[in-house]
């Protein structure tokens, strides 16, 4: 079955080092999270054969919690994509929607859980890369508050936006994995003390009585009719449980996709400068001078989407354009944060479809990068605002599963876990 799905790049068991809450559980780990002694490629030809000399903090925590890691999952190259089709190791197929993509960039992780090839999985979410594949594969995914989970050992794409997040079949199981990986780490200075003592799995009690759920009109208007129908049905369920829904407005999301891509591409152009083929990765040879050698290594090692983002990021940061793109994107980011803060004055949780569209057909979306970027409209505002969000299955259209996204205030993961557990 796995050969069909291509959910894993490397299948190799990593044994637990202790007994704990995840004893007996299998976990699939996205291939941009470092595993000592086990190849970690980021879905890129650049890192084919790269074997990290140390574990990411989250992997250490999995092992001491009793989990058995079953392999490294397929992903869009360096996390850059929404379909898992930009992987140098071939696309992953969606077990919940035949002929369609599993979403991305953590498509292998979500597909592995959906197909029962792992009990749980870790992904990373820079602009929706945990929530999108969770929605498309009909499983649960959480993007934690920025600073709740250590990024030590995560190969960096866009540091100011990304978080490692759990994927599972149920809200409670997914929240239990969050319990294991959350909490400060002295090796990641952006982790915070907030949330260190919080538990998550026990919040999945389905009790939404008295909860106020805000629905940002801008995130529903553009969605496919079939998706909206399932979304409305999920809201009905929440109201039946005693929750109240109110309309809220987030005018800033109109420029959120633009801001997200400018910031992510700019950070990527800087982060991926390390891949010069000298300390690790594909070598550009020694016959030319260093600039030519590095440029050759990067031509051969990087796929088209990675080149596109590195170049656009370089452009956005270059002399004469920095103020026009990068600085404006930071203003747009501050605006998004302010908008969310205002929305949370009237609502406890915000709800929208996770993805405005059902899963794409395999190969359908590769030719037009801009159209694909627009599919991230509902997920990227959350990363820009550093907030936690969960995607929970909410029915299906003829094309495949639909996800309900619930967004909370910073370090208020418990409330989104609770609300999500009421609709599953």
């Amino acid at each position, binding site marked *: 079955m796995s050969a069909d799905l291509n959910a894993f790049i490397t299948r190799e068991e990593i044994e637990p080092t202790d007994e704990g809450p995840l004893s007996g559980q299998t976990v699939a780990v996205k291939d941009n999270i470092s595993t000592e002694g086990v190849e970690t490629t980021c879905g890129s030809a650049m890192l084919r054969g790269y074997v990290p000399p140390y574990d990411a903090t989250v992997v250490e925590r999995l092992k001491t919690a009793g989990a058995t890691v079953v392999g490294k999952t397929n992903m869009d190259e360096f996390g850059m994509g929404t379909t898992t089709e930009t992987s140098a190791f071939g696309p992953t197929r969606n077990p919940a929607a035949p002929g369609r993509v599993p979403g991305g960039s953590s498509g292998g992780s979500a597909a592995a859980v959906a197909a029962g090839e792992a009990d749980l999985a870790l992904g990373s979410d820079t602009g929706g890369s945990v929530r999108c594949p969770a929605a498309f594969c009909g499983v649960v995914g959480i993007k934690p508050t920025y600073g709740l989970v250590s990024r030590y050992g995560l190969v960096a794409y866009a540091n100011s936006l990304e978080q490692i997040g759990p994927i599972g079949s149920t809200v409670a199981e997914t929240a239990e994995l969050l319990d294991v990986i959350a909490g400060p780490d002295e090796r990641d200075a952006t982790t915070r003390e907030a949330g260190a003592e919080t538990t998550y799995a026990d919040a999945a009690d389905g009790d939404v009585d008295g909860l106020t759920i805000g629905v940002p009109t801008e995130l529903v208007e553009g969605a496919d009719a079939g998706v909206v129908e399932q979304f409305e049905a999920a809201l009905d369920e929440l109201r039946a449980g005693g929750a109240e829904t109110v309309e809220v407005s987030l005018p800033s999301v109109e420029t959120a996709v633009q801001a997200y891509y400018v910031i992510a591409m700019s950070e990527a152009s800087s982060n991926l400068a390390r891949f010069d083929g000298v300390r690790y990765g594909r*070598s550009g040879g020694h016959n030319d001078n260093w600039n030519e050698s590095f440029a050759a290594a990067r031509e051969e090692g990087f796929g088209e989407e990675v080149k596109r983002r590195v170049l656009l990021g370089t452009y956005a940061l270059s002399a004469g354009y920095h103020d026009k793109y990068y600085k*404006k994107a930071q203003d*747009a980011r501050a605006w998004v944060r302010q908008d969310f803060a205002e929305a949370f004055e009237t609502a406890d949780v915000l709800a929208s479809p996770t993805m405005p569209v059902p899963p794409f057909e395999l190969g359908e979306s590769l030719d037009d990068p801009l159209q694909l970027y627009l599919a991230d409209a509902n997920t990227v505002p959350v990363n820009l605002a550093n907030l936690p969000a969960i995607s929970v299955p909410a029915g299906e259209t003829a094309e495949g599963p639909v996800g309900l996204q619930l967004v909370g205030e910073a370090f208020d993961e418990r409330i989104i876990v609770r609300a999500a557990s009421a609709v599953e």
Partner: protein
Amino acid sequence: MVDYEEVEHVASLARVDLDEEEVERFAAQFDDILSYFEALDEVPAVEPERELDNVFRPDEVREGLTQEEALANAPETEEGKFKGPKVS
């Protein structure tokens, strides 16, 4: 707005060789994508929040990778060092 030469220039800044077809394709796509980014000009002025503080720790020597571990993934090494291309 974005022409062939401009893509080549950015590619050289980013140290990424491109073939001719890639440069042509990127020129057309960058035009679309950068036009889309133009909407950022309409973003109103917002007071940026200062949320993050610098975090310091004492600068103490601790165990790191061994030389062997650090060199293990290098395509080429020589006498315990990384081997790279000529610098000029």
